């Protein structure tokens, strides 16, 4: 019942779950970043579907109608905008750090990097 009527939210949550399991199962740092971005997309889809109301217009005032009954909720749209900007910044930051790690240890595997790093701190 709810599974069918809330299909967008359910799909957003599954997308989030796919990204999350990607983050946990992959040992490659680049694939972890891809998983992180899939999680972000799940959040955007969830926010966009929460703001949607059946049969209403996008929140751009047309023909001078300023009745709240005519437009969808503008707040989640603003939140998605914030989310996209922050995710772009965080992705660029993570990729730059990954490049530095690769130059230092010549590997993208998190376990190997962790072992190299722990051996360095022991000395």
């Amino acid at each position, binding site marked *: 019942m709810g599974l069918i009527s809330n299909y967008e939210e359910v799909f957003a949550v599954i997308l989030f779950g796919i990204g999350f*399991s990607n983050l946990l199962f992959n040992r490659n740092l680049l694939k972890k970043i891809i998983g992180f971005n899939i999680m972000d997309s799940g959040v955007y889809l969830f926010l966009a579907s929460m703001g949607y109301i059946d049969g209403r217009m996008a929140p751009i005032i047309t023909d001078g109608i300023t009745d709240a009954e005519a437009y969808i909720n503008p707040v989640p749209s603003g939140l998605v905008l914030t989310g996209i900007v922050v995710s772009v910044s965080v992705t*660029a930051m993570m990729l730059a750090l990954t490049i530095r790690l690769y130059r230092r240890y010549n590997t993208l595997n998190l376990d190997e990097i962790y072992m190299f790093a722990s051996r360095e701190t022991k000395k």
Partner: protein
Amino acid sequence: MARIRDNYERSAAYRAEKVIKGEAEPLDFLPEEDRTTEDKLTIEKTVKESESELSLSPETLTETVEFKLYSRIYKALSVVVCIIFITSLVITAIHLPSLGSDLNPANNEVPERYVEKGVEETGAINTVAGMILDYRAFDTFGESCVLFAAVICVLILLKESDLSAAEHSDRQNEPKNDGILKAAASILFPVIIIFGFYVILNGHLSAGGGFSGGAILGSGMILYLLAFGFEKAHKLFNYKTFAVTVCSAQIFYCIAKGFSFFTGANEIETHIPLGNPGDILSSGLILPLNICVGLVVAYTIYTFYVMFRRGGF
């Protein structure tokens, strides 16, 4: 006797013998203050390299019993965590109010107020633009600061001190005098830039705004760089223009919105005309703020590309 041995240890013959036997590095015998930091770094590096050769390599470490046990436990736990996490999220999503219903608790008096009073108070036809650049302008300022901080971090992390080496490696990937790309870019670049400015300038009238328009401008700049190479692109976009544009846009945003919030909080007249809603020159500060945000986003995207490709302007 002791003095004779000390004298011998200071002599050149003793040092040469040590170096030949491989027990010491030639630099070890220099007085501390004579060594430059570079020498120290090379010594540390060689020591580290020899040590890491002696110790176990990661391939052998990943095959130890402890590691295998750890990875097995990790995988089992991850499966359990993922299944519990996804199931609980799906159950929550099923019990949420149904999609598209106006009885959704998110549709309360806040968005109602934004839609009903938005045109009157901000002068923007696009309610989302009015919301993010007027009611919640400091939130958007925070966003552009996040972008700025990310650019600074990438600049610090990926800055190449020696650009000529990077230039050499970059040459192999760069399209050299690609005729099709150049012809296409010379037609597309002006169109893309004009469209980007259109989206930015119409941010308060239609869908769009600083962020999306800035992304379009940034991709146009990247296309120009791809088609005409670094030398030509640097006449238009270089580190100096980046620093001046982004910093002045951020400072203007900060001062303009600080003024507007200060006067608003103290109930002083701002004397910023809201104009006729629907005109291109209307809605007070939203249009200049959109331009600021657009410039910041465009230069951010271009700088990300340049830094990841070559490590410097």
